[in-house]
């Protein structure tokens, strides 16, 4: 009964959307089109898929996007030249149908697909590619992509060689250079060149822009945005991929993202059937698990993802700041033995069990088991040992006072605070467990819940914190994007943002190794180099890696073509191949806005 009511409500609330009109007519494949034929099941066209976002997207502009909700939407609206298949983690042709590399590894010549069209029907050619890279590489535009398109501090040179051929000149040989092209969305020159010349391109394509002025090469195109409620995408009738029977993809008529502010609300809406796909945390996974059969959905535990959660201490140079109390405590934090002792005292196994219900992997360095190509299996995974921790602290000059508290060489008690954001309940729980773990060494820990933005300000600007628990997600399986984190002077060198030159010998070695691996082209040699980096991180604990949560997703059983990936967008990265099984298309259409 409750179900009926939910559906009835949905029909009522979606009525205004229904009035917007039909979905675009699917265009037949023309012979002159260099269409990409995708392997996989042959699907059935039609229907609407509902996903959810935690906050409203901020923009539809691929040049300036930084926030995750916008990125998730833009990923469906745009396409790149060479794409990383999130299932195999290897590169595959996208808008570039082929490419070749010069023997010195510095020149890439890409051959574009001929005869394909943007989602507004305008043809695509090499000029669009050259224009796109000009925008991304322009200083004045301040695109976050710009940093990624630099090799050794110098930008890539882009040149048109023919109507469908573009040459990319790298300033230095760069390992896995074709991965650079992934997620660099190609922009329509005919729509954005005017804004670029006027210098307003970073303000273009906001959410208030009429859908007709936005076009891309992705499987879907923008249809409607209702602030605080939903953003609706419709099928791109000109999309350049087809299935094995030459049916133009995507199958779905529409994808809608509902704005659902919390994960608990998301879970309830998923159970009610309002949302078709979901990513959940382990606790909600357990809560949803029991209803799988009754509610006709399936949950998938995809194993470890690319996120690593870690505890880190403030090792910034604070001489320019008025923070004497933290400066005093840094004397402890800078001792390698102190950090090693903290690492030895953390009960990672209990964290996996209590916080993640077993759906996580304990970590001692930054590479998670998801990254099969780069993980170093030789990294030691010592069990928790309070004896070892206590011994390490003794060698560093710490001792136990009469009441059991740990005191340093000056006799002052060891006490510090850990910042966590309460919006991430897992991290707060990790902090509470670490608090208890370190309490057994006589270290007094305060857990301080603080809003995420406030933590970011303290970590990146004011350096007014003692320790914090945060997580990082590698953007790619390749180690290259990690340079920012591990080399001194990197933008995400969290624990010591002020460190412009390496201060410790191991940091000097990490810097050299990370730079060297970018220029070595042979995978096995690069692997050796990165293995050593992992070893150094695990030994010197600049950050104390704790755990990597499993990626847990759920989807309705009638949704077919799913290839869940441990990387974002977990279930929607191949949205063009998703389809509703026949018997359900009718039902969904009776509810969805594209019904006739």
């Amino acid at each position, binding site marked *: 009964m409750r179900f009926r009511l939910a559906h009835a409500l949905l029909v009522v609330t979606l009525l205004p959307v229904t009035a917007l009109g039909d979905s675009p007519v699917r265009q037949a494949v023309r012979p002159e089109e260099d269409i990409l034929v995708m392997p996989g099941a042959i699907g059935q066209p039609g229907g609407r898929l509902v996903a959810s976002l935690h906050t409203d997207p901020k923009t539809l502009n691929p040049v300036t996007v930084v926030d995750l909700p916008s990125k998730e939407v833009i990923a469906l609206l745009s396409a790149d030249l060479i794409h990383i298949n999130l299932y195999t983690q290897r590169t595959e042709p996208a808008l570039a149908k082929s490419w070749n590399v010069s023997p010195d590894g510095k020149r890439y010549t890409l051959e574009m697909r001929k005869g394909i069209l943007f989602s507004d029907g305008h043809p695509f050619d090499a000029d669009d590619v050259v224009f796109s890279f000009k925008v991304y590489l322009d200083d004045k535009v301040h695109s976050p992509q710009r940093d990624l398109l630099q090799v050794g501090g110098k930008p890539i040179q882009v040149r048109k060689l023919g109507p469908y051929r573009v040459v990319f000149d790298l300033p230095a040989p760069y390992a896995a250079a074709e991965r650079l092209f992934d997620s660099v969305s190609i922009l329509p020159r005919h729509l954005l060149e005017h804004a670029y010349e006027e210098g307003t391109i970073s303000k273009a394509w906001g959410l208030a822009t009429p859908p007709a002025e936005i076009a891309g090469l992705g499987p879907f195109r923008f249809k409607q945005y209702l602030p605080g409620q939903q953003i609706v995408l419709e099928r791109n009738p000109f999309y350049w991929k087809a299935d094995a029977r030459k049916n133009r993809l995507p199958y779905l008529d529409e994808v809608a993202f509902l704005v659902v502010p919390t994960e608990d609300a998301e879970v309830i809406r998923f159970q009610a059937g309002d949302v078709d796909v979901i990513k959940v945390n382990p606790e909600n996974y357990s809560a949803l698990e029991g209803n799988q059969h009754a509610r006709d959905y399936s949950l998938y535990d995809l194993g470890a993802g690319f996120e690593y959660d870690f505890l880190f201490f403030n090792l910034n140079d604070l001489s320019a700041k008025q923070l004497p109390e933290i400066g005093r405590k840094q004397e402890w934090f800078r001792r390698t033995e102190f950090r090693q002792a903290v690492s030895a005292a953390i009960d990672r196994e209990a964290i996996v069990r209590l916080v993640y*219900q*077993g759906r996580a992997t304990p970590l001692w360095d930054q590479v998670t088991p998801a990254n099969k190509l780069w993980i170093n299996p030789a990294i030691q995974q010592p069990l928790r040992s*309070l004896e070892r921790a206590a011994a390490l602290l003794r060698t560093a000059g710490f001792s136990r006072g009469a009441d059991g508290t740990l005191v340093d060489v000056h006799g002052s008690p060891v006490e510090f605070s850990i910042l966590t954001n309460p919006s991430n309940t897992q991290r707060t729980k990790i902090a509470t467990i670490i608090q208890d773990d370190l*309490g057994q060494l006589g270290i007094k820990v305060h857990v301080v819940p603080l809003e995420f933005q406030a933590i970011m300000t303290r970590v990146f600007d004011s350096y007014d914190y003692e320790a914090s628990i945060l997580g990082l997600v590698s953007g790619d399986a390749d180690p290259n994007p990690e340079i920012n984190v591990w080399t001194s002077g990197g933008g995400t060198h969290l624990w010591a943002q002020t460190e412009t030159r390496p201060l410790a010998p191991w940091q000097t070695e990490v810097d050299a190794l990370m730079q060297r691996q970018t220029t070595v082209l042979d995978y096995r040699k690069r692997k050796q180099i990165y293995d050593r980096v992992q070893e150094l991180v695990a030994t010197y604990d600049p950050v104390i890696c704790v755990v990597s949560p499993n990626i847990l997703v759920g989807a309705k059983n009638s949704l077919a073509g799913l290839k869940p990936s441990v990387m974002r967008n977990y279930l929607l990265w191949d949205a063009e191949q998703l389809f509703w099984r026949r018997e359900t298309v009718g039902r969904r259409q009776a509810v969805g806005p594209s019904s006739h």
Partner: protein
Amino acid sequence: MMRNKKIWFAAMPLALVHILVLGARFFAPYDPAQQHRDAPFAPPMRIHFLDARGKFHLRPYVCARLNQTTSTGSPRYAEDCSHVWPLRFLVSQEAGVFGAAPGTTWHFLAVDAPGQVFLLGTDDYGRDQLSRLLHGGQVSLFAGLLATGLSLGLAMVLGGAAGYFGSWLDDGIMRVAEVFMALPWIYLLFALRAFLPLNVGARQSFFLLVSVIGLAGWARPSRLVRGVVLSAKQRDFVRAARGFGASSVYILRRHVLPETYAVVLTQAALLISQCILAEVTLSFLGLGVGEPVPSWGNMLAALQKYYVLENYWWMLVSGLVLVPIFILYHLLADALQARIKPSGSPEMSSLTPQRLRVAI
């Protein structure tokens, strides 16, 4: 006599609750922060007097807990009555952190190691809910009592002064009281928390809570006190005292304020439950004492998560105990009011319970 009975009926159980909470270190089986990491979300254990064969045991026992949790999935437990742990009363236990000198503590109730007794279940870290409930009461109940004391103290001074001296002082204090009632306290507290240093210890945050709740609550009772003082200062014995040349402070202290005691006492019984609720609300939102120190509010905070609310009913226990405590305090307030009415002056008797409640 009948009325006295009513007061005792409310006051005795309340006294018992406060004694239990004050003696939490003794009555609680465990340290409230001790994590039993093999037993997260363990359900409350049954106390058995009769065994499987129907034999009665004078010394009750609990059954061992069988952990059926798989390596992944939510914790599941079953009773395993092939191993039983008799409850022991008044036992001494060795306690102490790793590597430090152990100390001895006395406990009202315990079972022999390695048995465990969780009469109200455990939370997500495997911490004993009963121990947390008792220790949490120290924060919640006494924050309520102290904040009420502060509120009423302020109310007597400010309300008394406003009522007795009148004119501009009366106007000033009453306008301030109105402003205080209009302030959005929760938002102010969020702002206040952002300005405080990060390392606020449990004791500091407790006193901060008390002062904030106390400051927030003085306005309404002070208006009531002012009303009583206004009528009392017209009474003949007050005029007589003034005629004999008594000072204002003397008259207030000796003649006027004692007239308000009955009203204030009734107010206290009502205000205490409101202050407890305020503490619980603030801690629930993460503005109270921090983990791992328990309070009834931060114990309830776990219920903000959907899966906890759905699966683990025993996490509600700190919310449930509020109900009888509030009812008892209200019964006490009613009984006190009933005592005031007949013995008080004509003016006082016009403050019927209904009117009082409107005034609150």
